[in-house]
């Protein structure tokens, strides 16, 4: 018989997504934290793996993880995965700006769309559970009969039109049809083709409340499939920040809930800003008391260390699949020490004869000496520190640690990119290569890392050498970095109207910040403590803060030392930096440096006016 037969039901076809994710999934601390029996707020930029974490909590996710490792722990709850569709969000946003229905009706329609979406997800979860969790418990015929019984209860509870075949697929289809009809209704309302007498034009089922339906439906499932034994359910809402505002408030409020049946697992951007939307005292759910915050991006050194360990495993596994004979990423990429770059610059071959690279005549010594000759401000710095610029070797370990190690990255970048008499020196710009830099530059974002590795492995396949040299690695990094900046510039929400018909673009703001850091690092007076972060100071207008928040959401801007998950002040007063993935665009090293006010970067001189070069007219 045909292999397509019932492929609608086949594991391979339907659950390919879960199966593929499970194959490459490496459970980390964040995942184990998420498996705990409490409410969680998972925060991180796009691509930082939040969705993957949630998907691996669902019944098919767990099933495939246990296929790989039968000992894999099962969470103490059933997960209902509820994604938010960005197109759907835009549709609702547009709907909210229209005045063809009054505010109450708008909210009813919005609530209906959300409720229906949640019910579709619940239907999916029930199907997953029947197929994955309860498969062995009941014979096929009986399982169908049980599904029919459950479906009959749902048809009644959810006001589904009958006659209908009592199965979960039919119910799901009906729910999807309801959404199509709602879209038609919105269009009819827009063109005035609906007579609004009272609220008769809104069907009764629009008034259903998602939370009470979830509660009754899960109880129905427990009655039929679990011998009425009560179960715990985790409602996993993905991308809270693009859900309607009323839902964001309700869900955050529900983090205080002590309901025995439901846990909430919410994913969102690195910060939930409630600026101008809610008084701070009204946000009653408290981090650590009511819910745990799981942050998925690198906001400090400890995160970077964990990220590097995770990246190493991920990279090694990916390489092993493509090149079984290669044992470790370092074989392909080598180590990311500055010495490889400097050896090419100074044309030094072979093994160093020196004990340390700082020793007289060694490679860093050469760098400091050469830089002092071409860079008067560096010479001045060394002299100020009592270091002979013609023999810049450390006098002792303490001096090496306190000065030489610290100035090394700045010295390398200044040497390679300094403007001398109006000309760029650019001796060897290959500075983005090696392990662990290729991990660190991805800044805690598995999506970046996977894309990067795909490009590297394609390169490796074509080159047939078994390694990728540092200049090629750097070129690939630069090209990805450039594309990333272009993508940010072209993002549909990247332009904001600052004044009537005068716009500002997030990509341009990022470029200004990056260029400013580059200027301070390379062209201005040498300092061992340059700027590399920015603070959202009070002068920065809300419209620009909104753009910066988009940057944080897209992973282009990193929120450092996050002290608050939910904030009534939003990003104001917070310290941030550019994602390291953008650094090659601006010839910046991967280092955390001190912060400077954002207004200082964006404003012209001491005025309160944004530099006109950043603004473009429609």
């Amino acid at each position: 018989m045909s292999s397509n037969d019932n492929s609608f039901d086949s594991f391979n076809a339907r659950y390919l997504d879960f199966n593929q994710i499970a194959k490459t999934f490496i459970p980390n601390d964040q995942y184990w934290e998420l498996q705990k029996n409490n409410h969680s707020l998972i925060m991180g930029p796009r691509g930082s793996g939040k969705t993957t974490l949630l998907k691996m909590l669902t019944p098919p996710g767990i099933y495939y993880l246990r296929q790989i490792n039968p000992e894999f722990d099962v969470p103490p709850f059933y997960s209902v995965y509820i994604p938010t569709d960005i197109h759907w969000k835009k549709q609702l946003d547009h709907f909210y700006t229209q005045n063809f229905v009054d505010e109450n009706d708008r909210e009813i329609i919005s609530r209906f769309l959300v409720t229906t979406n949640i019910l579709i997800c619940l239907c999916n979860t029930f199907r997953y559970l029947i197929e994955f969790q309860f498969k062995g418990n009941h014979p096929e015929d009986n399982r169908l009969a049980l599904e029919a019984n459950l479906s009959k209860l749902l048809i009644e509870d959810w006001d589904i039109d009958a006659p209908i075949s009592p199965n979960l697929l039919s119910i799901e289809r009906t729910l999807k049809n309801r959404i199509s009809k709602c879209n038609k209704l919105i269009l009819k309302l827009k063109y005035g083709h609906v007579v609004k007498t009272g609220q008769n034009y809104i069907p009764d089922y629009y008034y259903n409340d998602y939370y009470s339906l979830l509660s009754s439906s899960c109880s129905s499932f427990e009655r039929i499939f679990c011998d009425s034994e009560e179960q715990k359910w985790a409602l996993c809402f993905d991308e809270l920040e693009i859900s309607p505002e009323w839902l964001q408030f309700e869900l955050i409020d529900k983090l205080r809930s002590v309901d025995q049946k439901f846990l909430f697992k919410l994913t969102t951007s690195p910060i939930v800003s409630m600026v101008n939307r809610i008084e701070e005292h009204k946000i009653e759910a408290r981090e650590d008391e009511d819910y745990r915050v799981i942050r998925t991006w690198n906001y400090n050194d400890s995160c970077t260390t964990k990220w590097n360990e995770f990246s190493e495993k991920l990279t090694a596994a990916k390489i092993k699949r493509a090149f079984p004979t290669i044992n470790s990423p370092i074989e392909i990429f080598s180590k990311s020490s500055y010495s490889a770059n400097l050896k090419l610059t100074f044309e030094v071959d072979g093994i160093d004869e020196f004990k340390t690279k700082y020793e007289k005549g060694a490679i860093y010594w050469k760098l400091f000496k050469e830089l002092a000759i071409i860079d008067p401000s560096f010479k001045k710095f060394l002299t100020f520190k009592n270091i002979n610029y013609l023999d810049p070797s450390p006098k002792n370990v303490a001096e090496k640690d306190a000065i030489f190690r610290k100035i090394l990255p700045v010295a390398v970048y200044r040497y390679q990119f300094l403007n001398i008499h109006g000309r760029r020196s650019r001796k060897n710009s290959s500075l983005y290569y090696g392990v662990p830099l290729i991990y660190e530059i991805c800044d805690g974002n598995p999506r970046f890392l996977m894309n990067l590795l795909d490009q590297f492995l394609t390169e490796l396949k074509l080159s047939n050498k078994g390694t990728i040299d540092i200049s090629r690695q750097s070129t690939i990094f630069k090209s990805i970095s450039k594309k990333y900046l272009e993508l940010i510039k072209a993002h549909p929400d990247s332009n904001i109207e600052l004044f009537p018909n005068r716009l500002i673009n997030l990509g341009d703001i990022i470029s200004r910040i990056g260029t400013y850091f580059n200027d301070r690092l390379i062209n201005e007076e040498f300092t061992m403590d340059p700027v590399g972060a920015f603070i959202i100071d009070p002068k920065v207008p809300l419209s620009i803060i909104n753009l910066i928040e988009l940057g944080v959401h897209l992973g282009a801007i990193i929120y450092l030392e996050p002290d608050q998950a939910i904030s009534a002040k939003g990003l104001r007063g917070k310290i941030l930096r550019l994602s390291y993935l953008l650094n090659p665009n601006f010839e910046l090293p991967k280092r955390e440096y001190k912060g400077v006010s954002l207004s200082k970067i964006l404003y012209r001189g001491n005025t309160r006016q944004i530099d006109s070069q950043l603004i473009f007219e429609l």
Partner: protein
Amino acid sequence: MSDRSSIKLAIVSDLHCKHSRSDETIASTLLYTDDIAGATSTNPYLALKELIKTNELRSDILICPGDITDKSDKQGLASGWQYLEKIRERLDADDLLATVGNHDVDITNVEKLGPLGVLKRFEDNYPVKINPIKVFYWDNDFCLYNEGDLLVFIFNSCYTHLNHQSSKLSSIDQIHLDSIAKELKKLNMKNFKFKIALCHHHPINHSNISNPDIDLIDKGELLVKLLEDFDFQVIIHGHKHDPRLSYRNSMPIFCAGSFSSTQNVNDLRIENTFHIIELLANERKGIIESWVFIPQKGWITKMDTHFPCLTGFGFRGNLETLAKECAAWLKSKGQDIVDFKGIKEVFPDINFLSPEDQITFNKKLLENDIEVTPNFPNIPKYFGFVFKR
């Protein structure tokens, strides 16, 4: 081999393979010869190899109804044929059989070898691997490929394509029809349990909203009649990129659509397709499994495709009676709902419903308070009585 009750035919049609540089401003294909580092998610050939491996697909022969290349791009022809060879290998198929498509013909005579010159000098196994049959094909514009219990009639519907003007039309004349009949009479048709016909152009009308139907094979209906008289079981053709199953009297005619061209695919909002037909011995009955290519997902089966992912041909009974019998059976089981696989085991005729039959069958079932979920022509999972309040 002689004991087999069915045969599997994999079909890859209208590849329109070419070098990316020979593409015009708008990409007209998904299959480029220089996509050497392509990903399975974007390259239909690589994705098909993956599908075959993952789903352990097998077929007895691989058929290509023409247009391997696009606008006679030589590199497209060479790579396209190589891809087909590799697909055949992976499917573990005994033979790869093809016919000439209008895009394979060098109508501008770039190579100064005549319109079919390049093709005649191309690979030894193109369009069939047996040399005398191949020679016969080029001399007579058709051939009869027979191997054990299998007979394949292959027609070159582009034999009149000498220049740009003549390449717009296709035809078959009485001399060809007489010659085909004469050759068929030489064979003992009873020796063949599987009789298949293959051509590039459509022998009967195949209109769609965006293209006038000017290039069907003139006198094609006479060819169909002749093949029907000689008990051929199915005619397979390409050229038109919207796949379709039709009947001419009792003869099923299957248009395979396009494997990787985007022309008349994107504009008609339809999908690129790959098919495997399971043809029953000595009957005009078969099951067609189809996969659609979705960039980023590869070859998949999904709901609401232009051509159903699981359909068939050859049911000639009464759908109302079939629906009533199914309802009676379900009632006798005392169950509200059963797995769809179960009902097909009891009523195997359901396998051979054409896409049109499938839609009518939905209605007939509903008249008996029965619904299949998802509805035909999607692939149903459930078969059961509807719930009424």
